[in-house]
């Protein structure tokens, strides 16, 4: 995020785009509620009537998959009505003329067929966003999980640049990162193209710095993104194939799109190493399982969504009968056994190595993290007076070679797999507020399990339910070109009739049996928010209920649970 979470409530206008904070980050959603209480206007752009839409001044209930058409159209109105911050554009940006040209064809009337949003509402949104004086954009997976994703982010950035909503308190653009430490994994260089601190592996001087620090020559070739692993296992020629997969704290056999293909690739791999705290679906394919300490059993640092480093602390010891090691100890020992010795005594020692190699993190010492609790990078100086940076791009300075923000001129493109006669509905994944990710943690928490459990729900418009003859709570079959699953019907008029939504946490109602592995060309993020599906009524509900029970028991058995002990968890 360009700006801090704590700044959200001070914005005069929040432009919430494809971001359902109430389900993905209730404590960030709290800031949206507080902003409203403090008098901020809210524009919500979402195909569903999400919680933010309820309290918004304007809800643009756009058609799924029309993001960039809408964003460019808002830019069109801002230009057409002379609402640009001309001074900011002139002094701090490049490429505006080309962008202006592109926007010409995106009048609200021209895109209304694509977006299903009334032209008046697009105009109203553009005026509100451009004239509040302090507008902040928040976006989430409703932007990122499309085959056209990075370009929509750039489109949103265009809006902030053209209205001068950068580099001040309570403005900017905020991708609210989903998983707790996804920011941290990026910060630490768990990325195929960058070392820690966003230092590119293809830049010779940077590579030389890391070669010197680590004492070995390093590869200058950008690595393979995670979502392309199935492709590199199954479809590349022999010489380019991936043969070993070291999976650490993840469960691709549950979380990745098109699970049938993921399973096929896990079976094909010569070696699958799994390092985790609980049995998971990938474990079924693992040749080696390395058990590690869980959250609350080790020390370290997390990065929260707005670049804030914070300490995590060991709260308890692992259970006495658990022969587990911390993740960094396991990896260090394997490394040492492979002839590249890594010897660390504690996480602070590792952290000191990190911050010395990353200029934007250098000042975030353990000492300061203890004292201040939270340090947002960039924090460049170790002196106690440098407490980090709440918002980026101060004084209109951007991280491009010319120091300017660059307008991106990109056309909207439709999603990959459109609804058709056989699969007439749009299928999109969503989040379960009480569960996390693949549920290896939250699924093993008693109360969270009580609140929601297998096989999850599919949100359907009541008119669609009526058409299909399905009622609240009934089990239904959801089918796409790639697979099917069984889940429960949840009629709700918060969704339109053309689209259905399933939360992605479930193993029986496993929505990734349906999703398509169509990737954004830049971020390689799958199109989790759009594929075609159909929903079928199951006539024999008694059979379906017993199927779910049986499946659940099978899952628990395969995950090492003594099923005979205790009652059914469903």
């Amino acid at each position: 995020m360009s700006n801090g979470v704590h700044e959200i409530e001070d914005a005069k206008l929040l432009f919430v785009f494809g971001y359902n904070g109430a389900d993905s980050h209730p404590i960030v959603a709290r800031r949206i509620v507080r902003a409203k209480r403090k008098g901020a206007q809210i524009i919500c752009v979402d195909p569903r009537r999400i919680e933010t839409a309820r309290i918004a001044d304007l809800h643009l209930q756009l058609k799924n998959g029309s993001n960039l058409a809408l964003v460019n159209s808002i830019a069109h109105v801002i230009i057409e009505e002379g609402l640009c911050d001309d001074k900011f554009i002139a002094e701090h940006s490049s490429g505006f003329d080309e962008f202006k040209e592109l926007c010409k064809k995106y009048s609200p009337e021209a895109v209304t067929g694509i977006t299903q949003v009334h032209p008046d509402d697009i105009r109203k949104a553009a005026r509100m966003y451009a004239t509040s004086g302090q507008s902040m954009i928040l976006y989430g997976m409703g932007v990122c999980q499309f085959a056209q994703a990075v370009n929509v982010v750039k489109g949103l950035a265009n809006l902030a640049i053209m209205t001068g909503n950068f580099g001040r308190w309570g403005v900017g653009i905020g991708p609210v990162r989903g998983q707790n430490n996804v920011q941290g994994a990026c910060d630490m260089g768990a990325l195929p193209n960058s070392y820690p601190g966003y230092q590119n592996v293809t830049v010779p001087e940077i590579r030389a710095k890391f070669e010197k620090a680590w004492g070995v020559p390093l590869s200058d070739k950008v690595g393979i993104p995670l979502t392309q692993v199935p492709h590199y296992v199954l479809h590349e020629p022999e010489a380019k194939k991936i043969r070993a997969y070291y999976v650490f704290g993840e469960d691709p056999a549950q979380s990745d799109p098109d699970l049938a293909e993921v399973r096929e690739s896990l079976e094909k791999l010569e070696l699958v190493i799994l390092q985790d705290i609980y049995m998971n679906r990938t474990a079924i394919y693992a040749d080696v399982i390395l058990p590690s300490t869980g959250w609350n059993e080790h020390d370290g640092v997390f990065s929260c969504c707005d670049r804030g480093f914070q300490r995590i602390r060991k709260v308890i010891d692992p259970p006495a009968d658990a022969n587990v090691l911390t993740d960094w100890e396991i990896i260090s020992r394997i490394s040492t056994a492979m002839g590249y010795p890594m010897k660390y005594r504690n996480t602070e020692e590792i952290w000191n190595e990190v911050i010395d190699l990353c200029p934007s993190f250098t000042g975030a010492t353990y000492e300061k993290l203890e004292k201040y609790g939270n340090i947002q990078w960039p924090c460049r100086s170790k002196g106690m007076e440098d407490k980090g940076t709440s918002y980026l791009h101060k004084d209109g300075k951007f991280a491009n070679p010319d120091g300017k923000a660059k307008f991106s001129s990109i056309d909207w493109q439709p999603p990959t797999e459109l609804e058709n006669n056989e699969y007439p509905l749009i299928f999109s994944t969503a989040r379960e507020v009480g569960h996390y990710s693949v549920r290896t943690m939250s699924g093993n928490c008693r109360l969270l399990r009580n609140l929601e459990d297998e096989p999850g729900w599919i949100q359907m418009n009541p008119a669609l339910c009526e058409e299909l003859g399905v009622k609240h709570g009934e089990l239904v079959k959801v089918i796409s070109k790639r697979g099917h699953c069984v889940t429960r019907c949840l009629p709700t008029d918060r969704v339109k009739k053309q689209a259905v939504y399933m939360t992605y946490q479930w193993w029986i109602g496993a929505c990734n049996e349906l999703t398509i592995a169509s990737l954004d060309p830049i971020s390689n993020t799958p199109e989790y928010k759009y594929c075609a599906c159909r929903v079928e009524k199951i006539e024999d509900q008694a059979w379906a209920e017993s199927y779910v029970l049986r499946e659940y028991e099978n899952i628990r058995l395969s995950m090492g649970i003594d099923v005979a002990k205790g009652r059914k968890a469903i």
Partner: protein
Amino acid sequence: MTVNEVQTTCAYCGAGCQILFKVDPEQNKILEAVPAHGRTNESTLCLKGHYGWDYINDPQILTKRLKNPLIRKGGKGSPLEEVGWDEAISYTANRLMEIKQKHGPDAIMCTGSARGPGNEANYVMQKFTRAAIGTNNVDHCARI
């Protein structure tokens, strides 16, 4: 009963909430999670922050806690067998070295983790991938 208090950062989303855990040190048990003051959460927590910690006690609900290293000694399809750490480490290292020797470092892919392990573990993982294996094939589940 002595009750210790330890403050940490929640592991359930990017909001970065601060939680104070009350712990019984003798029994090595968490008793309760209460909101602590943090820049982003201002002494509030959601349901996952309040009630998302008892997984650590291995309540046998969905999946079993992994407590020992496991290897399929008989190759693919054979059962997972418990082994000690020394054997697990040398087995893993040898298999990785074999593949690296035969097919080159780019035949190996590693992941970081966007979840509980923390920044230091991610740093060590990418360093291992780049320096010990010799490839930039490291990525994580940022996209889900």
